[in-house]
């Protein structure tokens, strides 16, 4: 069996992507800082998902409560990771997704790709975001300001 670069770079055990609560801007800054010694990198691309205070029938979304089928989501994310590394010449790829309550204005998704040249980082990052929204068993419950809720639905436009 020929082992591709992706097999070498990815670990066999699925990496955890879930963090409890919002993803802090400090954590994101630290993640960027950690790449300063990887001088083969010429481009980083970052996607941040922020909880939007939608107004639906005069009720405003104040937070999203995220739940997941974690074991399945991590296996699926592992597969996405392998596919992305096989398809794009990436140096690094990091994905973090919130679980539990994330207030409007806070960050719930952080996707970070790095490559020698920008095209791979940009294209891979977009593809990861699209695939994880479509394929990861994660659910967002939108909590309104009157304490009622509705279950969020993903659309191709986000």
């Amino acid at each position, binding site marked *: 069996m020929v082992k591709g670069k992706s097999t070498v770079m990815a670990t066999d055990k699925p990496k955890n992507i879930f963090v409890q609560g919002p993803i802090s801007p400090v954590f994101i800054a630290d993640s960027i800082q950690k790449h300063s010694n990887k001088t083969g990198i010429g481009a980083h691309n970052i996607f941040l998902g922020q909880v939007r205070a939608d107004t639906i029938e005069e009720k405003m979304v104040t937070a999203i409560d995220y739940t997941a*089928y974690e074991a399945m989501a991590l296996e699926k994310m592992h597969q996405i990771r392998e596919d992305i590394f096989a398809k794009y010449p990436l140096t690094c790829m990091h994905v973090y997704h919130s679980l539990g309550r994330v207030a409007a204005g806070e960050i719930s998704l952080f996707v970070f790709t790095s490559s020698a040249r920008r095209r791979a980082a940009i294209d891979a990052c977009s593809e990861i975001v699209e695939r994880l929204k479509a394929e990861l068993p994660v659910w967002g419950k939108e909590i309104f300001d009157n304490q009622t809720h509705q279950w969020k639905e993903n659309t191709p436009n986000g």
Partner: protein
Amino acid sequence: METTVLIFGQLTDITGAAMLECMAVPDTDALQQQLHQKYPGLAAAKYVIAVDKIICHQNTVLRAGSTVALLPPFSGG
């Protein structure tokens, strides 16, 4: 044989529980029939079935210890 069924997202509003135990269900069609009888709201809900973390596209035989999950449309990110 007892089968563990994990319930997620909006489907928990229908079942009132995140985990159910179903008795004597040989396959996913039989399981679905049993669940729809007990929770009529599920019959109208949109979801797919995963057996041991793999989404089933057709009726699937359940083995002892299989974990079944009902997955409504995903809304992560």
